[in-house]
C-alpha cells in the first residue's frame, strides 16, 4: 500500500512539472530582450525538461516495483453496481465509497472516544470492550459470500431435523427447518445474520414466497414470538457463526414442544397452551406466564 502511495505521489509531481514546463513555454520570451535572456530561457527549459525526464524514470521504476495483488479485491455485491445502466444510478458507486470512508472514520473516532471515556472509572453500564479485541472487518456480518453460508448450515446437524436451503431473494438465504414432526420454521438470513423467523405447524404449508403469513394455531404464533426474542438474544455481529449455531440448538429444543411439562408449575397445559418458552441457556421449558416469576 505504501508503494502505491509513493507511486501516486510521483505521478502527481510529474504532472505538476510538466505543467510548469508548458506554462513557461507558453509565456515565451520578450522579442526585444537581449541574447542572454534567450539563453536563460533555453537553460530554464532544459532544466525543466531534465526534471521531467528524471521524474518520468522514477515513475516508471516505481511502477515496475509494484506487484499485482494476489487475489482480486472482493467487492461483494458492489461489483453489480458496475452493471447498472440507468444513468441516474451510475453515481452510486462513488457515493458508496464515500459512505464507506465515512463509516470508517466514525469507527475510528468512536474507538478513540471509547478509549478516552474508558479512563473514567465511573461506569454506568456493563458494556465491556476489551482493548485486546481485534477490530473485525465490517464485511463479516451481512456481506458474506454464499459459499460460507452454505458451509455453515451444512455443519449444523441436529437429530430429527431437516434443513432446506433456498434463495428466493438473490444471494440471501431462507432456511426451512423441519423439526421432528412438530413444527416448521423459515429462517430468513441476511448474510449469516437472522432477520426474520416464521413458525408454522407440521401440517401447515410454509411457502418461501409467503413468509409473513401467521400460523393458524395459537401455539405456533406464540412460539414465533419467542423465536424473535431469541433472535435478538443470540444476535452477535462479532461472532456470527457461533450465533447462528447457538440459535439453531435453541430452536431444536422445540422438538419436545408438546412432550415436556413446565419446569415451574409442573403442568403441561396452561391457558390451553403447552410450555412455549425455552430457556435461552438451559433450554428448559416454561409457560410464558411461568417464565418470569
Amino acid at each position, binding site marked *: 500500500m505504501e508503494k502505491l502511495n509513493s507511486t501516486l505521489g510521483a505521478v502527481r509531481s510529474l504532472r505538476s512539472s510538466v505543467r510548469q514546463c508548458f506554462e513557461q513555454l507558453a509565456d515565451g520570451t520578450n522579442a526585444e530582450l537581449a541574447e542572454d535572456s534567450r539563453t536563460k530561457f533555453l537553460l530554464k527549459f532544459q532544466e525543466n525538461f531534465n526534471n521531467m525526464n528524471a521524474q518520468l524514470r522514477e515513475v516508471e521504476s516505481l511502477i515496475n516495483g509494484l506487484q499485482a495483488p494476489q487475489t482480486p479485491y472482493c467487492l461483494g455485491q458492489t461489483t453489480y453496481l458496475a452493471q447498472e445502466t440507468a444513468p441516474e444510478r451510475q453515481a452510486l458507486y462513488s457515493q458508496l465509497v464515500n459512505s464507506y470512508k465515512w463509516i470508517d472514520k466514525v469507527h475510528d473516532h468512536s474507538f478513540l472516544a471509547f478509549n478516552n471515556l474508558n479512563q473514567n472509572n465511573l461506569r454506568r453500564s456493563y458494556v465491556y470492550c476489551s482493548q485486546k479485541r481485534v477490530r473485525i472487518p465490517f464485511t463479516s456480518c451481512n456481506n458474506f459470500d454464499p459459499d460460507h453460508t452454505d458451509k455453515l448450515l451444512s455443519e449444523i446437524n441436529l437429530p430429527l431435523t431437516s434443513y432446506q436451503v433456498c434463495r428466493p431473494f438473490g444471494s440471501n438465504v431462507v432456511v426451512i427447518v423441519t423439526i421432528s*414432526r412438530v413444527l416448521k420454521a423459515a429462517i430468513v438470513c441476511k448474510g449469516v445474520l437472522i432477520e426474520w423467523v416464521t413458525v408454522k405447524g407440521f401440517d401447515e404449508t410454509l411457502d418461501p414466497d409467503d413468509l409473513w403469513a401467521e400460523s393458524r*394455531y*395459537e*401455539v*405456533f404464533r406464540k412460539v414465533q414470538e419467542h423465536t424473535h426474542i431469541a433472535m435478538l438474544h443470540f444476535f452477535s455481529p462479532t461472532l456470527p457463526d457461533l450465533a447462528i449455531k447457538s440459535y439453531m440448538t435453541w430452536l431444536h429444543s422445540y422438538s419436545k414442544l*408438546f412432550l415436556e411439562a413446565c419446569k415451574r408449575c409442573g403442568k403441561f*397445559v396452561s391457558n*390451553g397452551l403447552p410450555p412455549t418458552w425455552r430457556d435461552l441457556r438451559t433450554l428448559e421449558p416454561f409457560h410464558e406466564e411461568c417464565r418470569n416469576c
Partner: protein
Amino acid sequence: MGVTVLLPYQIPEGKTGAQAIDYLTKRLLALGAIHTGQFLVDCETYISTPQHGPAKTVHVLHDSEYPASTFSILDNGAGKQIPLVADNLFDLLMLKMTSVYTSKKQTKIESKGARFEYGDFLIKLGSVTMMENFKGILIEIEYRPCVVLSYCWEMIRETLQGFLGMPIAKEYPAYFSQQIMNTMGQQQIHTKQNEVYEPIDTINQYLESFTNYRKQNVLPVAGGATGGASSAQNAAANMQGGNQRMR
C-alpha cells in the same frame, strides 16, 4: 388437522345424560373454553343382499368437521376393512345401490352436541342417540397443532382430567396402541400412537364406539376412559385394512 381422542363418558350414577352434559359444559366454560357452535357425526350401515355372496357391510359416516366429505368403510366380512373418503355425491350413489346394499335403518346412530375451543384444543360433547334413544355420551378432544399422539398425549390427558374431574389412565387409548401392519402384512414395531394422524382415524374411532353402542342394546355405557377391551379386539381385527388409509 390434529390428533383426536374419542372416549365414552361414564355418566355418574343418579344423573341423566342431559345433567351430565350440563355439568361438563359448565366445567369446560369455567376452564376458559369458548362455545363455538354445534357438531354432528352420524353413521348408517348397509348390508349386501344374500344373492351377492358372503355378507359385506358398508358403514357410511359424516362428520360436520369435514362437511364436504362422506366417509365410508367397507367391511368384507373376513376382517378386512377398506376405508374410502369421497365427496357428498357418494350418498346419492348409495341410494342407487339399494338392490345390492340395503340400509339397516334401525341402527342409524349419531353423536351430536356442542363444540368448544380451548386454546388450540377442540372439544366436543356428544350425546349418542340411536333411533331417538339416548345411548350415552362420547367426548371428542382434538389437539389441532400436533399430528402424532405420542407427542401430545400427556397434554390431552391433562386437559381431559381437568374438565372431567377424574383420573385418566396413563396408557395410550386402545385405538392407538394397536400394532400396525405394513404392506407386506408384517407387524411393525411402532404402533399407531407414533403415526401421523389422519381424518379417517377419527372416523374409525367413531365407528368403533358406535359399534359398541349398537351391541349393548339397552344398558347405558360402561366403557372406561380408554375404551373397553372388546373394542380393542374388534379394532385389532379391523386394523388389517387400516394401513391402506386414504391420502
